[in-house]
């Protein structure tokens, strides 16, 4: 572990409930600890979000073959013929839509994790409200004005947009392919995403004298416009540079203009390979609001929904192939989501109305491939009101991505997700060392006496090996590495002289591998 990683991991756990001198994490922008933490955000993992606008029909996407007769009872006019459903490896009760051959092959190769029935309590059936819920990560009855990614990135890019881009953070925190930036990226003060449609084509602005903005709503908008202009000018250069450094290598992408998702993912692969340090990309595919003509009558494996799923399948497979050839596959995680699934029972227009929970896909070399959860239960005689209940909260998926993919601290996780959610076993953590965190038992860490005066003894339980014990002051500044040595498995202790320390609050940290515990102690006399 290098110093950067050390510092990156050093603010988890114990610090979470602590308010330091009445200030929060954001206030540490200028102290060395937080600056190092900020720099550490350059670790190279990327998340690609694929939004399926309109509400994807989950039941016709991931098909519960074990209840096929019931399926025929409730949606006979749109159900996929049983013999056309694509089989998946090691599973006879679930299949995939026939348009998804490439994606099925990815699944069989362990590159896809399917999470069943993702939703939230008290589902909302309005597109706009449901989309807001997914993008902000709110409860059903809660309005949040920041997006889930905005809250996360706000903590990685402290005080954004003030002073960005800069030498340490030359690249945009997030990139949205398209004309409009998703509310998911709305941070406390600004959106953290930059919107592009063509990485090679930006138009230059004029630059010159700037009058002070007046103290009015007009001045407020003026300031916003100037900020976008300034950042666009600065970020456009780095994006062009990244696009210029790499070319797509996969031959599987359809011809440009035929598959909009594929066209978007091509840009993403090119920018990642070109060295852009952007952490999150969002792309989208519309048309999933299939109230009518979801399928062709009598040929239910064709029609609008089949075309859409086939586009996803082809585009994602080409993208994954490209990532592999560009040698960046291990750094990229993909995730699909849609504002809701659709009603169990179909309507007379060969379509489905707004529904609730639906499957969600994660893909990449670092997913734990397979199927999480059970098939949704299809009632034998569904009524128009029946919906798929959730098995997994979508925020559990978000939390898992943040924790096991980006390796966020508990403080960051809490600030982003606002509540604790269970972590799902869908991302391979062994490659990241993140599971090492569990080796240190936080309950075992304590110091005595506390408060202390001349001396205090720090006790911890480790699995043995190299352990580092460090002391921080109340502003989070590293004061001293107290001990860095090989310890044996079991309980160990380090006694430190505190007589020279001023009265006040301090933190000590026990670090082993990437596992660490931080606790506070008081010096009093």
């Amino acid at each position, binding site marked *: 572990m290098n110093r950067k990683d050390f510092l990156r991991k050093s603010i988890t756990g114990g610090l979470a409930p602590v308010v330091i001198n009445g200030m929060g994490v*954001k206030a540490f922008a200028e102290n060395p600890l937080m600056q190092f933490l900020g720099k550490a955000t350059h670790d190279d993992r990327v998340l690609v979000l694929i939004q399926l606008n309109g509400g994807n029909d989950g039941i016709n996407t991931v098909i519960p073959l074990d209840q096929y007769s019931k399926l025929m009872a409730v949606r006979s006019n749109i159900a996929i013929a049983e013999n056309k459903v694509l089989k998946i490896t090691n599973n006879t009760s679930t299949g995939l839509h026939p348009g998804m051959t490439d994606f099925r092959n990815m699944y069989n190769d362990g590159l896809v994790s399917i999470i069943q029935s993702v939703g939230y309590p008290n589902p909302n059936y309005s597109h706009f409200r449901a989309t807001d819920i997914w993008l902000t990560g709110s409860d059903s009855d809660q309005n949040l*004005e*920041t997006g889930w990614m905005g809250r996360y990135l706000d903590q990685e890019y402290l005080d954004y947009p003030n002073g960005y881009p800069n030498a340490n953070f030359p690249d945009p925190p997030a990139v949205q392919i398209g004309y409009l*930036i998703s509310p998911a990226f709305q941070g406390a003060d600004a959106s953290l995403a930059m919107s592009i449609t063509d990485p090679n084509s930006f138009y230059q602005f004029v630059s010159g004298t700037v009058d002070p903005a007046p103290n009015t709503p*007009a001045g407020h908008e003026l300031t916003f*416009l100037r900020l976008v202009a300034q950042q666009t000018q600065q970020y456009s250069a780095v994006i062009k540079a990244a696009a210029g450094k790499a070319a797509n290598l996969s031959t599987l992408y359809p011809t440009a203009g035929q598959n909009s998702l594929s066209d978007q993912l091509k840009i993403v692969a090119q920018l990642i390979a070109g060295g852009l340090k952007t952490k999150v990309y969002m792309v989208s595919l519309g048309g999933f609001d299939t109230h009518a003509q979801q399928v062709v009558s009598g040929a239910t494996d064709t029609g609008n929904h089949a075309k859409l799923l086939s586009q996803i399948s082809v585009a994602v497979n080409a993208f994954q192939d490209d990532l592999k050839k560009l040698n960046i596959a291990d750094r990229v995680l993909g995730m699909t989501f849609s504002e809701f699934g659709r009603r169990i029972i179909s309507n007379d227009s060969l379509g489905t*109305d707004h529904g609730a929970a639906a499957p969600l896909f994660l893909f990449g070399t670092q997913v734990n491939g397979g199927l999480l959860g059970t098939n949704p239960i299809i009632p034998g005689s569904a009524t128009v*009101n029946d919906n798929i209940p959730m098995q997994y909260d979508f925020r559990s998926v978000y939390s898992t991505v943040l924790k096991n993919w980006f390796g966020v601290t508990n403080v960051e996780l809490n600030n982003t997700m606002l509540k604790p959610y269970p972590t799902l076993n869908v991302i391979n953590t062994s490659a990241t060392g993140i599971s090492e965190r569990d080796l240190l038992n936080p309950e075992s860490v304590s110091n005595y006496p506390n408060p202390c005066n001349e001396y205090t003894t720090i006790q911890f339980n480790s699995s043995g090996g190299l352990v580092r014990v460090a002391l921080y002051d109340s502003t989070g500044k590293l004061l001293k590495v107290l001990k860095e040595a090989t310890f044996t498995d079991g309980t160990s202790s380090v006694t430190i002289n505190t007589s020279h320390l001023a009265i006040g609050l301090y933190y000590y940290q026990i670090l082993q591998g990437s596992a660490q515990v931080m606790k506070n102690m008081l010096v009093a006399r």
Partner: protein
Amino acid sequence: MAKISRRIFLKDAATTIVQEKPTFATIDYIDPSNKTLPRHLAKTSTGLTEYTGLFNEAQILHLLRRTLLGLSKADVDFFKTKTMSEAVDSILNIPPNPPPPPLNNYGNNANTADPTVPFGQTWVNAAVNPNLEGARMSSFKSWWIRLMLTPNRNISEKMTLFWHNHFATQTTIVQDSRYVYKHHSLLRANCLGDFKELVKQVTIDPAMLVYLNGEDNTKKSPDENYGRELQELFTIGKDIAEHYTEDDVKAAARVLTGWRNSRTNIASFFDTTKHDTNNKQFSSFYNNTVINGRTGTNAGMDELNDMLNMIFAHQETSKYICRKLYRYFIYYVIDESVETNVIEPLAKAFRDSNYDIKVVVSKLLKSEHFFDPLNMGCMIKQPIDQVIGSSRMMELVFPDASNIQTQYAHWIYLQQFSALCGQDIGDPPNVAGWPAYYEDPQFYELWINSDTLPKRNLYNDTMLYNGFNRFSFKLIYDTISFVNQFPNPEDPNALISAISTLCHPVPLSQASKDTIKKAYLLSGQDSDIYWTDAWNTYKNNPTNAAAKKTITDRLQAMMKYMFGLAEYQLC
């Protein structure tokens, strides 16, 4: 549940306390891009009392920026002889006759030969032709651009756009150009009319019946799409915590069962056999109203009337529409003062007038609140306003009617540029319209990002320098003709002030104007005489190519700068 401010939210969410932002020297940063305005900003408590203050150039410019798509110097001069009340009345006076319909501009081409509609004739009543739908939609959008470019000095274009955004439909989903035209004509004809009647007509409008699946909505299998959006987006909204229930959506869908479209007649009709004749029970939000199931040919209309009476009986409907008008004409922040002093009395006037749109728009535009200096210049132009408005200000010359193909090709170019900037008229992103008018907290700021802002500049730069050439006709700004309108174009100070007044709702400082003058009109020199001489040389010898080039180069560069300033994006 009430909205949580982002600061409070962060405090609640994190176990940490967020300290105020430290100050940095790099940018003069005043917290852009949020909903809650910075606390140090002045706020206004003005209301709907009729404005009696000065009605000078600043007020005229404000009125025109908000009610027209851009403005020309001639537009401003036109209103200079009027009082405020006369000016607003004039703007609200829309000629009763509908504009002539869009024409076949495509049939000149072998690929798009129209077997039923001759070139130059209208297709709006012709048989549907799948092979020509793309060409006809393009004809429709071109035609719409032409109407926007027409200098009629009334509010019809801004209001038609308002209703297009409110009752949003997409041509790509309706897929019948005749329905699209009919729907558009309905909005245009009623843009200042009776809102309740408009809701009724839109509900049974063929394009809407396609767009939100009303034509698929039957008693056997109700389709909830329209029943939901009617309440969520078109009438009651979701601004308040209490709102209609999911069962109300289902009940509304059942009320609306039985409406069908006839492609032959280009009209909707009511099919009694598809109508659910049972009673429809609504929730306590609607006072447990029961709409009696009807039979017979009038059943659909009678039940629709009952349901609209029920929806309009809720005062929230009038308030919701007034808030949308407010965000379209004034600003997006609706605080308690605005709600009390503007929205509530305006909504009352709306109800008292039986939902007469003209009454509320007139009241709003004539109010002290509208002319409050704090409400000036704080909107970000919608892309179509940027494209059309710039073209109108620069008095861009289009081909005449002698060549329809050429005309339409140039109009559609403007449409396509607006689409590149994020506003494809006829095809908003979805049924909610453009997010700039509803997405909290950014609102208009959503028009602006790293993709669209450069393109907004690109339009004017293209028109200044290279122009757009098609069928041997070039669209290009004539900067000399533009400048010639002003009283003293030879005086660089007067010229820059006059142009900036038209372009920039937030005035430029004298220092900025001096910088522009020196950099562009004086080519770095200090004396005004350099520009005055150059201009007079040209005027004395307008056929001298070198003299013309000297001033054209300077005017183009200056206008590029004027358009490129952030101030130009405001209105």
